[in-house]
């Protein structure tokens, strides 16, 4: 059996906050940064396309005062994008002169279902594997239970085709299906993630994830 306990924020589909912001140095040495470092005001990127940047930087939010300024300004917007302090390192990419490069954020939208245990409240994903029959709460061991109309709560015979039969009725040659009591509630979840990407055209792509940095040769 394979189970994965979920953090509630990983199922809510809430728009994630930003952990890093971009900085770009043009070939003339001019530096653009996603936020005004004094006021926290957000700026648009000079160009989203490939350009002849001297260097690209993804900078982690660290300074609590700066984070506060950014979030205060964002809270005044209709669709705010809040920011959070990050333990990620600063990532600085320096293309060779003449190499075209760009930065982008890469969004991921993942849809899935999961179980929530009605006894202990744990949310978990369950993936059926070879010897699995039913999902089990990984924290308290709760399962769905079954009742027979005649014999009450029973430990059913789980058939491969998904039927759950009363063992007592089966013994007397009168097969009867059981009613499932849903102690494990099936719910829908959405997980949104953002990775921070820097690309040197046709050469290399650096993708900064929550807990790792992936470098791909293109």
């Amino acid at each position, binding site marked *: 059996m394979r189970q994965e306990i979920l953090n509630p924020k990983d199922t809510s*589909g809430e*728009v*994630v906050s*930003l952990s890093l912001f*971009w900085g770009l140095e043009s070939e003339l040495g001019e530096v653009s940064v996603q936020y005004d470092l004094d006021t926290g005001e*957000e700026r*648009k*990127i000079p160009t*989203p396309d490939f350009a002849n940047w001297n260097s690209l930087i993804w900078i982690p939010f660290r300074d609590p005062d700066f984070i506060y300024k950014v979030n205060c300004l964002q809270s005044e*917007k209709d*669709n705010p*994008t809040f920011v959070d302090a990050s333990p990620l390192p600063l990532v600085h990419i320096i293309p060779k002169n003449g190499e075209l490069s760009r*930065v*982008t*954020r*890469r*969004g*991921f*939208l*993942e*849809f*899935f*279902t999961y179980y929530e245990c009605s006894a202990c409240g744990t949310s978990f994903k*369950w*993936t*059926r594997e070879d010897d699995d029959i039913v999902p089990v709460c990984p924290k308290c061991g709760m399962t769905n239970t079954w009742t027979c109309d005649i014999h009450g709560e029973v430990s059913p015979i789980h058939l*491969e*085709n*998904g*039927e759950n039969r009363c063992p007592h009725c089966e013994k007397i040659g009168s097969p009867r299906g059981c009613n499932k009591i849903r102690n494990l509630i099936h719910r*829908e*979840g*959405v997980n*949104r993630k*953002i990775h921070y*990407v820097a690309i040197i055209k046709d050469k290399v792509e650096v993708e900064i994830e929550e807990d790792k940095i992936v470098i791909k040769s293109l």
Partner: protein
Amino acid sequence: MVATVNVQEGNGSGPTWSNITNGRYCLTDSKDPGTSFPCIVPVSGVARSFWKSHRLSWSGVGTQLSNIKWFGPGGTVKNTWELGTGGDVVVAKKATGPHGCDTYQQATGTETTGHDIMDSTNGHACYKTSGSVVSIDTYTSANPLDVDNTVYGSGSGSSKHVVTQVVIGYDAVQGDKTDITFTFQYDEI
């Protein structure tokens, strides 16, 4: 600013595009039929679900949204879902990428099977002539399907859509199946 992005399913002849948080392959053109209209294990050969059309929809893009891709859960879905001989979950692709479709076609079929995406008469016009279907196992986070390479500007919009379908072999195991996860990815700035 970070864009607000949702996955939508197209249904009906219009179509109506609705935000979804899950989907269920079935024998009707509905985004969420519950346990009604279940797929059927055929007596011989294979049967299919009605196909599904999914796309990205967004608002609040600051400057640009582009590079839209899609991938399945990895592993071997036909085994996970015990889909039997010839069974699989398939995704449609064009002869050359990007593989998303920009001409919606409503899913159709009968009470026992959906029409094959590749059927020369009732199939999907985007794919049936020169496209193909392949197992969704082909596309993973390391090798996603190119859906749409259009560069979309600021504001709101929607992408081309991905068309998928379940194929069920005669010896498939019936029953409610473990959930699998589909993921859309996109670049935005």
